[in-house]
């Protein structure tokens, strides 16, 4: 059941990215380009809407003692703001600005078969492996 629920969650996540057009790098860059003419604030509403639903939903879910198919909630507890967090976020942000894709939309857009997206995902996996090898 865990697998079915996760598959279903992944599917809804992907459909949400498609409906909101966040799998379109031009749409993402249209938001990030705040200084350009014809700024497209759509991404702000996508994030806002997702955050509101998640905030309310998490509040309700965390009232339960445990998840439906597991013994515990696996939630990060660290509050440390260190150099890794800051430099990682900055490096990620630069990459996001360059490609117009972050990990979720990149996977959801793979099915479209565009060579740029295939290359982006391949490079992303190499980047993930490089982090693991270099810094653990």
């Amino acid at each position, binding site marked *: 059941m865990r697998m079915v629920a996760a598959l279903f969650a992944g599917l809804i996540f992907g459909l949400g990215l498609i409906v909101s057009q966040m799998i379109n790098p031009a749409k993402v860059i249209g938001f990030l380009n705040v200084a350009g003419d014809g700024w497209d604030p759509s991404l702000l509403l996508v994030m806002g809407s997702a955050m509101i639903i998640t905030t309310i939903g998490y509040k309700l879910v965390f009232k339960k003692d445990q998840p439906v198919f597991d013994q515990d909630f696996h939630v990060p507890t660290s509050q440390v703001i260190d150099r890794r967090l800051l430099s990682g976020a900055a490096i990620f942000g630069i*990459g996001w600005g360059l490609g117009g894709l972050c990990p979720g939309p990149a996977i959801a857009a793979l099915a479209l078969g565009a060579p740029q997206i295939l290359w982006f995902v391949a490079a992303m996996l190499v980047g993930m492996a490089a982090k693991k090898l270099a810094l653990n």
Partner: protein
Amino acid sequence: MTTFTPISALIGGGMIGLSAVLLMLTNGRIAGISGILGSLFEPNQTDRTWKIAFVSGLFLAAFIYGAVSGTTVEVALPHRLELMIVGGLLVGFGSRLGGGCTSGHGVCGVSRFSKRSIVATAVFMAAAIVTVFAIDVAGGGL
């Protein structure tokens, strides 16, 4: 250049939120794509199955969307291939180093009022905006 699409943005964003809530309710997990994807390839993972299932759902969504709506998903790729490759490398490396991306930090973390996630989200948003501005000024890519 793209146009503002508030309705589809709100609906799509709501679906992303529902997905995050569903994954927490059923599996007790954060819907952080970089974490799920990155840890898939690490040795000694005991809980690979739900991660593979989630990523499969994410990958299959475009096919389901196409079959149900009868339309194809349109994307415009504004950048040259080398920008996509460098972008991919940085996204992969940075998201793992910083412990999350737009979904894990941006949606799930901020919604838990995690201090780390709020800071990370502010930093990657600012970095991305500056990057796009720099490319624009340099006259490349877009």
